[in-house]
């Protein structure tokens, strides 16, 4: 399945799918996760995983 097709089926833009893929996303909606798991026939744990490291800085992007 191509990225365009997946974006179409899940109902997100290719740009957002790319943000998700590159790990730049801050959060993921349950509805998006649900749609992704449905289309990819997988579990949430196959998409998201915890990687040990410094805590996320919530202020880092605040002023763009």
């Amino acid at each position, binding site marked *: 399945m191509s990225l365009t097709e997946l974006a179409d089926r899940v109902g997100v833009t290719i740009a957002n799918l790319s*943000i998700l893929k590159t790990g730049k996303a801050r959060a993921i*909606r349950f509805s998006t996760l649900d749609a992704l798991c449905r289309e990819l026939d997988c579990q949430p744990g196959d998409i998201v995983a915890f990687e040990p490291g410094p805590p996320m800085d919530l202020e880092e992007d*605040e002023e763009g």
Partner: protein
Amino acid sequence: MRALGPGSVSSFLKIILDVAHVALSVGLGVVTTLALAALFFHFDPKFLFRDAEFNLADAQTARQIVTGSLILGAIYIAGVLVIVGRLRRIFATLTAGDPFHPDNVRRLRMIGLVLAVLELIRYPTALITAWLAPEVLATRGFSPNLTAWFAVLVVFVLAEVFREGARLRREAELTI
């Protein structure tokens, strides 16, 4: 009546700010030219004080007051011009329907800073006026403007509100 977006109150206010910006730019040019002329050319200040309530004996002092007033006027107009310029840009983002643009935080902080500086300038000005021409201060009087300081604090708090708004906007952008 909509507050944000094209054709809203914001776009109407943006037009008013555009006009004010042009008028202030022209005013700044005129006052700066007059201030430079007063600094570098000799003039007789008596004609300015003919109908004034106070009576200045010394023409030299009168000349200094006129020149100082023109320089202060130019600084004041420049400050107001900076404020109006920043407000124009803020209202441009409101007209575009994007109030929590990250740049608005910096713009609001600048407005607060300029408001504070304009208020602070009044104190040494009053001191110098009291020294050079006590009659002028006696006629006009002087007191710290609490409303101005209140406005400064409100603008700085608003800047923080916009900072939080910009952070939430960024977070919403990165929520897939």
